[in-house]
């Protein structure tokens, strides 16, 4: 294995190992109760439980669309991170959400995101929110993320150190 592959694998392994902690380090994701349930290369899976205080329509008990926006935005970002070959800082450029059907009262919302293309400057992602399976889709998302090279101010070990910090791992 070359040095490049080593570094590449190290980053992804770092994310896998810290997967349960990733969302907890994001205050808004933690506040809304997002749970990262799994990651693969270029993909991420999450769950959010129905909660009374997240309801957007008091008459129907449907969760507010803004909760799905936050969930899919966050999950697309995680999926893009798993696809990176080197640590980069990331900012959402734009996000489109299509609402297919309301989330049902009292039921968990599951979600998955996929980073389907990556360039030097941009990560392109898709995401789905659903009950149980993707057949019962609640919303879909398309998000583009601007990637910023951090090698100018963090190189080699520093970049990996930055990635560790991002994932809430104390340096060993």
């Amino acid at each position: 294995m070359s040095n490049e592959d080593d570094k590449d694998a190290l980053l992804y392994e770092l994310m896998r190992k810290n997967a349960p902690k990733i969302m907890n380090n994001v205050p808004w994701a933690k506040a809304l109760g997002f749970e990262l349930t799994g990651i693969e290369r270029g993909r991420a899976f999450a769950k959010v439980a129905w909660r009374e205080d997240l309801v957007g329509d008091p008459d129907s008990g449907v969760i507010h669309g803004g909760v799905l926006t936050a969930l899919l935005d966050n999950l697309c970002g995680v999926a893009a991170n798993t696809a990176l070959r080197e640590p980069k800082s990331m900012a959402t450029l734009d996000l489109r959400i299509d609402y297919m059907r309301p989330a049902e009262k009292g039921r968990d919302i599951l979600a998955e995101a996929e980073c389907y293309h990556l360039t030097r400057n941009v990560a392109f992602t898709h995401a789905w929110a659903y009950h149980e399976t993707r057949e019962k889709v609640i919303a879909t998302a398309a998000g583009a993320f601007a990637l910023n090279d951090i090698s100018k101010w963090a190189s080699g070990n520093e970049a990996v150190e930055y990635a560790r910090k991002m994932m809430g791992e104390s340096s060993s």
Partner: protein
Amino acid sequence: MNRAEELEAFLDRTPFAQYLGLRCEIMGDEMTTVLPFQDKFIGNAAIKALHGGCTGAFLELTAMAQVFLQSELSRPPKPINITIDYLRSAKGEDLYARAIVHKLGRRMASVRAEAWQAEREKPVAALQAHFLVAENG
């Protein structure tokens, strides 16, 4: 109750609007929404920036409230789709927003909303949304 009072009454009993702590200042059919900063809104603790999903939720509520204010609806309009452009990093400070209803049809409404912080001329995010406004939708 006039339309503004109906909107405020609706927001008062909407759990997610309360959870966000959303406030709105209504002058006739014009409205500015305010999202007083709370620590839980942070997305990136390292740079103390607001979560994009928080700004997005705030813009969506603002757009929804503006449609409600200008229509005769008895229930909140249902979002069909939204697109959010993130223009600048939003700091850990209060957010403000305004929405313009470009078209209010019998079934659909098309709305644009912008959120800003220190300077109105430097929006941190913009939203374009379509809502279903048919009562039987």
